[in-house]
């Protein structure tokens, strides 16, 4: 099986599904990247190269570069979905969702409900998120908590290339609006990805690593951080189970509850800011339903309640690290 990058896995999924289903269209800023110096279109495939080659394969009617106007094109995408197309719209940095929040929150998320089930909105909004690239406060936020809060939206956060392809294919085939969040620091990570198409169901967590002393629940890029912490903990005799929910909405509550019941000690690692977050949401769920099985408080390892800093050393201090995870684990494990 070939090893592919996260970026290539996404590109595979987009190619495969656009070929399979003529209703799939794409729109966003610089999806093709404009003309190169020699006038060649589709030279860039977006600032992260994810959409390279799609214009050439499917043409300008199906792959559209838009003006810098999220309100307009996200609204257009929501409307296109209502008419029977299956649009994949891209918000270049999830931080720009502020510009089109009405289109997402009040329109797309609520169409099915408000139209009595007689409308469906098979819209995918892809967006990059996350800190680590020295891009400043307005290009590095992790806003999955906002979207998870809104009923009617599905929220998907792949942590590795294999999941990225399967979850994106699932998202495009899903008839509801899906917010598909891609951590910009994961694009170059590599893993085994089948050439064939495959889907991964939503609301299905992955047990990344089995363990019996503590359960570490991690989101997106933090799954890698948790894995690294687990490896170091193992050499100190602490066996950590690592869980990747993959989708925060719907959330695989069954697996999270089952593992918490069995192990009784939980650490949640989430890059988002700590107030009203997915981390606190999961924590409340576990505290309510597994109270008697818990042997220690649920520990949350998150960013601080602060915008993402621009100075490199401060940005690095902002992002949760394996050391921070290990510290939290040791504070609740007896050894």
């Amino acid at each position: 099986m070939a090893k592919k990058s996260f970026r290539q896995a996404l590109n595979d999924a987009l190619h495969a599904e656009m070929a399979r289903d003529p209703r799939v269209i794409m729109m966003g800023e610089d999806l093709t990247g404009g003309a190169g110096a020699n006038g060649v279109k589709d030279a860039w495939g977006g600032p992260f190269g994810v959409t390279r080659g799609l214009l050439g394969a499917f043409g300008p009617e199906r792959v559209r570069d838009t003006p810098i106007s999220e309100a307009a094109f996200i609204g257009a995408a929501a409307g296109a979905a209502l008419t029977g197309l299956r649009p994949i719209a891209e918000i270049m940095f999830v931080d720009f969702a502020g510009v089109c929040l009405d289109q997402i929150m009040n329109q797309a998320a609520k169409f099915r409900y408000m139209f009595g089930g007689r409308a469906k909105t098979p819209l995918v909004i892809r967006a990059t998120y996350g800190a680590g690239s020295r891009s400043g406060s307005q290009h590095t936020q992790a806003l999955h908590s906002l979207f998870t809060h809104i009923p009617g939206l599905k929220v998907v956060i792949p942590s590795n290339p294999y999941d990225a392809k399967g979850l994106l294919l699932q998202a495009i085939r899903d008839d509801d609006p899906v917010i598909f969040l891609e951590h910009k620091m994961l694009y170059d990570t590599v893993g085994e990805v089948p050439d064939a198409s495959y889907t991964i169901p939503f609301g299905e967590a992955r047990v990344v690593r089995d363990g019996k002393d503590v359960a570490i629940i991690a989101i997106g890029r933090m799954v890698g951080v948790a894995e690294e912490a687990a490896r170091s903990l193992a050499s100190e005799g602490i066996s950590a189970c690592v869980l990747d929910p993959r989708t925060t909405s719907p959330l695989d509550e069954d697996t999270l509850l089952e593992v918490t019941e069995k192990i009784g000690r939980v650490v949640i690692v989430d890059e988002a800011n700590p107030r009203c977050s997915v981390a606190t949401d999961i924590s409340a769920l576990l505290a309510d339903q597994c109270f008697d099985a818990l042997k220690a408080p649920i520990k949350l390892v998150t960013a601080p309640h602060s915008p993402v800093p621009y100075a490199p050393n401060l940005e690095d201090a902002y992002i949760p690290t394996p050391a921070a995870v290990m510290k939290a684990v040791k504070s609740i494990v007896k050894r």
Partner: protein
Amino acid sequence: MSLIEAVTIPKWGMTMTEGKITQWMISEGGAVARGQEILEIETTKVTNVLEAASSGTLRRIVLNEGTTAPVGALAGVIADESATQEEIDAFIQSYADRLGSGEDGEAGSPAARSVAVEGGSVNLLEAGEAGEDVVVFLHGFGGDLTTWLFNQPALAETMRTIAVDLPGHGASSPVAGGDILAKIVSSVEEAIRPLAPGKIHLVAHSFGGAVAAAMAARQPARVGSLTLIAPIGLSKQMNRDFLVDFVAAERRRPLLAVLERLFADPSKITNDMVEGTLRFKRLEGVPEALGAIADTIANESGQSQSIGKTLAELACPITLIWGEEDQIVPVPQDKEIPANVEIRKIKGVGHMPQMEAAATVNDAINSNINKRH
């Protein structure tokens, strides 16, 4: 001079490069008898137990539970009481030096490769000494060549071996439509002919047993022996629910519940085995292909295949190996077993003897291959 023995990470499976220590079954300072189970190790397929190669005391645990280490790494030290701490320390140090010097032991494990056949490709893994006769491993429904993780390396010590991913499984392309079993048999024969032109010894599990029986029926002179592990086709009874549920399970928990029925001891199933099976089943076309194969195995009234007559007409040595607690394909009654076929039943084992009692199964395979008529 005291005798000091190394406990090292074993090599199970041709492509295994590392193992994870899940449990030490004795503590440091505990007595050890030769053959006693001392260390539980997790591989990508199952968790299995390492037995002590000598008696003594477990003087030092070098690698803790939860550690993953390369094949050959020193996990612990067994020695008798007369060995001093200094001697143990020196032994551990010399081991580290030996590994560090680049003497890896196994440079370059064999890799599986795809061979083209009509209509697609068959993935297979070859291992073992060059020789005339070749052992061909055929896995069962929903499995792949890694089923033989604990068997192929053992057989490869003395013979040439080929483990095959059946069409529609592992990395082999699927066959569709018509007589699925016949198409699978053709693809396998086409794939192995250039690699094994002479006599072949077939070792097959479950559905693979029907494939093996069909191959033997088509070319009886070519087949040197048949070792069938819990094959389909001998009795009418079969747990068809297993097939249906296996194909239907799309999520981890339901699939785990299905896989647990395969083993007498379900704790042997690792997370990686479940995840690996899920990844295989998710691929486009796989559920349909598996469903088609399931239909050739059994219908509402029981098993559809029948290999008893084929076996009765073969001249080569035939041995059946069966776990007494097999919940999927129950042990056939004596009257359902042809007179020329031997059966070895194993206590405390389910539908996967090749994994659950690998040493016993490897012995039985070797015995069968070496029988002379």
